[in-house]
Every structure is written in C-alpha cells, then in structure tokens.
C-alpha cells in the first residue's frame, strides 16, 4: 500500500512539474514515426540515425522514439504528448505529420520542431529532407549502361514532387548515356507493400525490362530481380544482403549526422528554423558499394558521384524539356530548389502522366 502511494505521488509530482529540475539534467528529444523501427526502410533509416545520435551525445540526452503513429488527428496528440512529457526538440518523420506538427508548434513556441519532407516552416518548425535525386542521376547512368533492352522499370509510391523529381533525375541520367532510353513506371500507392512491390517487379520483367529501381521501401523487387537473373538498385538502405547478385548499388539515407548537428544546436541555443536539404556533400545521402558491374561502369559512377558531391555537376542542369517540348531550364542553367520541390511533370522521354499507370 505504501509503495503504491509512493508511486502515485511520484508520478503525480512529475505530472505537476515538481520533478522538472530532475528532468532538466537530460535534454529530451522526441521522434514521431509512421512505421515500426524494423520496417527495413524509411523508419528504420531514422532509427539508425537515432542510434548514432545516442552514441554521440550519450547520457546528455534522453530519446523517445514513437513508432507506428497514424498520420492524421492522432499524430497531433502524439506530438503534443511528447511536448507534455518535456521533450524540447521533436522530429516528425513523415510527410503526413506536416499539419499536426504546425498546429502543435503554434501552441508551444518554446519547443523546437523538425518535420521531414514537408514544405511548410514556422519560427519554431524546420523542414528537412535529403537530395535523393543526386543518387538517382547516378543510378540512371548505370542503368543505361547495364541494360541490354534499353528499358528500365520504376516502382513508385505517390505522385508527389519528391517522387516525380526522382523519376526525372533517373531519366536525365539515363538519357545522358542513351538518348533513346525507355522507362516503364508502376504506381502502387503505398510506401511499403512487399506483395504489391513484388507483383509490380514481376510484371515489369515480363514486359521486357531488365533493370528495376524503386521509390518504395521493401526489398521485394530486388529479390524478384535476383530470382529472374536481372538487376536493380536498393532504396533507403543498403539492400545488398537481400539480393547480393542483383543489387548494383543503393541510395542510402544517413540521417545520423543531421540529427547530431541539430540536437547539438538545440542544446547550445543556436538552433534556428530553416529548410534543410542536404545531399551527398553533407553525407545525408550515401551510395553503397558499386557491385555486379564492370570496372569501367563502376569507375564512371564513382566519378559522377565525386562531381555531384563537389558541386561541379548538378543533375538538373539544362537543357531540360517537359514532355511537350516546353523548355524548363535553358542550356547550362541549373534549376533552383523551389522548381525541384514543386515538380509535377515528367521530362521529355518519360511516357504517361504522374500517378497514372
């Protein structure tokens, strides 16, 4: 009975803020995620970043990592719950958390928020994303060199700018090697659905595609590629172990350095709202080992990777045309970030319209 009373009192005093002095010893950082940390893709990428963060800052911080929070009204409560539990810096890692994050942020101006992949900021809300399109240009070039049929398959989730940008970057890379390169696109309307992704991969191979890439999170397409003796690229994580004979390389998310930098900034008071969009140069995007390809193809890929990293080359350098021939970037002109982040059209050479199979 006494113990129960003690626990109740302790919990109550914590709730009432009596324990605030104790809570201030550690800086509390919260993460709100749409999937489980073992999804093998997006959320696991963030979890890996969090593990790096914990390793770096150790006992100075306390991390709460919420999993499988549904996008929508429940997210708002989860985010506000983290605020109430004393978290001072909160990362929300899915696009669907944009509005809930902004709503809670407006209520708590002293708490810092970071929303991944969104486009709306506030004085205490930063957006962050990675320049995955840089990697897509490199794999586009590899695909054009490795494909015997001159046709690649692309399994995609939602027709949002991020995804459309990736398709265009891949195609621009491929066209730089083979101007007549063809692309077959399958929309599955999900970030992660191994069954659908696998079916899409099979259908693409049946249609004469011999290399696939994806903007979805499971390893299923690569496994199918290996079964069929075809090739493909990993997404978000190094998927080499799932298909050692099929993976050419993978575009890897590496959030750790960003999380460490932002948490340190928040702790020493230098945190400012920004729209952060890092890539190969900052190490947020990485390419895994180039495998299953001739040495000269690998060497050219490494060379392109170095050029993009140093800033010598930008994948979206003109001339770039829309499908109907309208020029969106003149010869030698680099498209600005806003044009990229609102991209809702295919470049010339890609058939169909975004979102339609």
């Amino acid at each position, binding site marked *: 009975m006494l113990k129960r009373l003690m*626990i109740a009192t302790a919990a109550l005093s914590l709730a009432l803020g009596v324990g605030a002095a104790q809570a201030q010893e550690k800086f509390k950082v919260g993460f709100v995620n749409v999937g489980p940390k073992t999804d093998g893709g997006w959320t696991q990428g963030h979890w890996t970043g969090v593990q790096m963060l914990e390793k770096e800052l150790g006992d100075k911080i306390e991390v*709460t990592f*919420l999993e499988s929070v549904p*996008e929508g*009204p429940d997210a708002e409560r989860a985010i506000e*719950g983290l605020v109430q539990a004393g978290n001072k810096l909160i990362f929300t890692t899915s696009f669907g958390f944009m509005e809930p994050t902004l709503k809670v942020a407006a209520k708590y101006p002293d708490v810092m928020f970071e929303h991944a992949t969104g*486009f709306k900021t506030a004085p205490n809300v930063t957006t962050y994303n990675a320049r995955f399109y840089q990697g897509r240009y490199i794999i586009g070039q590899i695909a054009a060199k490795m494909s015997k049929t001159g046709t690649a398959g692309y399994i995609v989730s939602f027709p949002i*700018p991020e995804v*459309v940008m990736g398709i265009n970057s891949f195609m621009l890379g491929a066209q730089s090697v083979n101007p007549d390169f063809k692309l077959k696109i399958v929309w599955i309307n999900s970030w992660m659905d191994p069954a659908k992704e696998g079916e899409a991969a099979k259908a693409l191979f049946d249609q004469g595609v011999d290399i696939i890439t994806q903007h979805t999170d499971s390893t299923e397409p690569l496994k199918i590629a290996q079964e069929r003796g075809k090739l493909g690229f990993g997404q978000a994580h190094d998927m080499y172990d799932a298909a050692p004979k099929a993976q050419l390389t993978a575009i890897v998310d590496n959030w750790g350095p960003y999380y460490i930098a932002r948490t340190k900034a928040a702790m020493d008071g230098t945190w400012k709202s920004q729209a952060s969009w890092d890539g190969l140069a900052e190490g947020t995007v990485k390419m895994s080992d180039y495998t299953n390809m001739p040495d000269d193809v690998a060497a050219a890929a490494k060379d392109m990777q170095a050029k993009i990293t140093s800033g010598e080359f930008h994948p979206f350098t003109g001339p770039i045309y829309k499908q109907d021939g309208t020029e969106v970037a003149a010869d030698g002109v680099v498209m600005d970030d806003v044009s990229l982040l609102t991209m809702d059209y295919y470049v010339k050479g890609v058939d169909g319209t975004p979102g339609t199979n």
Partner: protein
Amino acid sequence: MRIELIRRPERSKAMAWLSPVIAVVLTLVAGALIFAASGIDPLQGLYVYFLEPLTLPFTLSELVVKAIPIIIVAVGLALCYLSNNWNIGAEGQLTVGAIVGSLLPILAPDFQNVLTLPLMLLLGIIGGALYASIPALLKTRFGTNEILTSLMLVYVATYLLDWLVRGPLRDPQGYGFPGSRTFTDFQVMPTLIAGTRVHLGLILVLVAVAGAWFVLRRTITGFAISTLGQAPRAGAFAGFSQKRMTLLVFLISGGLAGLAGIAEVAGPVGKLDVVISPGYGFTAIIVAFLGRLNPVAIVVAGLVLALSYIGGERAQIVLGMSSQTGRVFQGLLLFFVLACDTFILYRVRWVKPVHAAVAARPAE
C-alpha cells in the same frame, strides 16, 4: 471436481450489469501481468495507463475527443442490435458520411456562412444513411445476410475514399500529395473549450444519447425495436413489420455513423484525408456491447475504450512500451466481456467426480 455450465431459467439481471465490470477488472489484472512480464512495475504501469490520463487536463480533453465518434456510432448500433439487425459496417457508413459531407466544402469552398457546417452535417447523415440502406434493402428484398454485406461494403467505402482523395477531390495546391484542401472558418467544428480540441461533437453525442434513450423508453418505435429483437413472432402479432424495422434501424445507425464521420473530418482531421478513422466503426461494436446496448451506459463504455487508446499512447511515451499495447488491452477487454457474458445465460456448477469404480467399470 469439474465445472459444468447450467443454463439459467432466465437471463441474470445482476450478471448483465456485473459482467462488464468483472471484464474490466480482469483486463486490469491481465494488464498487470503483461506489465510485469515486460519488466515494468505493474502498479506504475496501470497508473500511467489507466489513471494518469484522467488526472491531466490535456489527456482528459483528448479522451473526450477520442470518445466522440465512437459513442455516436455505438448509440446507433445499439438500436440496430436491440432489434436483432446486425450492422457490422458502421466503419463504411462513417466513411461515406465523411465523403458526402465533405463535398460541400471541397466543391464550393467559397460557400462560407452559418449554414455551411449544419449542411455538411446533414449531408454526412444522409450519406451514411443511404450507404446503410444498401445492406438493409438487400436483406429485406433478397434475404441476404446483412453481417456479410455491411462488412464487405466497408472495404468498398475505404477504397472509394482512397480513390477520391488521390484523384477528383485532391487539393490542387497540395503538390500531388493525397488529401483534399483543408477546411476553414465555417467549414470546421467550433471548439467548445479553448486550448483543447474538444469540439461541437460533444453536443452531438449528448443529443444522440438523449434521443436514443427517448426513442427506446418513451415511444412505440422503441417498444417495437425491443419486441422484434427479443420475440420476433410476438412483434409480428403486434403488427410490427420486421422489414420496415430493418430499414429503419439501418438508416438510423448509418446516419449516426455518417454524422460521426463528417464531425471527425470537419473536427480533428480538418480535411478529407486518406485515413479518417482508425477503425472507430469497429471499436463502436465493442462499445455497444460493453455498454449493454444501453445509450447511457454506452457513454461510459466509450470513455473506457477511448482511455485504452490514450493510455496506450501514454505508455509508449512514458514507459517506452510497444505501440501495440493499446490493441492488446482492447482485445483483452472484448475477450473478457464475451467470456463474462456467458454467465448471464449460464451458471456454474461444481460437479464432484463420478465414483472412480463406476467410471472404470467396463461397458457390458
């Protein structure tokens, strides 16, 4: 010793009310065991899960927000189940209500005046009711099983919503992301308590509960519902039409589900989105039975179920427990309610073992 279940001559009134209470207690005990098995102090676990949310203004208000759609749907389902009609598809009716109600703010965004929200709510009710009339008419016309048809229509509704918010109703300024434009001003449910998300839906809950109570206790329709539910033949002799009743209760429960849907979309969700309900239509079935199909008791049951959601989130934040804990508790609760309900119709008898010698004697 062995246990035998003996059928009671009549339903036990005491057990009918005790059963949910016993079920909640058993859930707490099982919960304590789960906490202990996860290496968490069971008392602290139960405190964080079930009591702390009732002590903080933030969680308390969220509890109400969460319970609003569940209770509105459950009240309608209670009328259905009392009359022996099995509408399992409230989730679909909720979805269609949300869609139909949202058409006004999406297609006519500039129609902004005091009539906007009432019209949206009305459209939501009509949408849900019409969608519920499909399984009702299939049952009365062709004798189909309404459990099956209403359940299957849930998936039709979910995919309809999915298609609409990715296609025709998508926000043109949304950069290709699925979801309609965000509702504003007169298109959203007004907040009742400043600083919280408690919205007009709370009033709708009270109206729905009072209305259902009045219908059941004070009207011929209410009498017909319980008569047809308990003794269909007696109801038929009294001149009540089984078919008209089926249609009526499906329209009511569908309408209320539709109301819950549009209230949710115009309330906490704020727009027609890919996902607008984490299964409120199904949770409401548990709530309806936990509340003994009594409108007033359903309010309590709805709050208990909402607590299982909110507590689950608290346990994840404070104790670092898995996000699935809440679902485990809901499953336990439903299991114990159904198990305890056995004792309404049966009583337990301890039977002494038959004499060993007699039992062992070979058949002659």
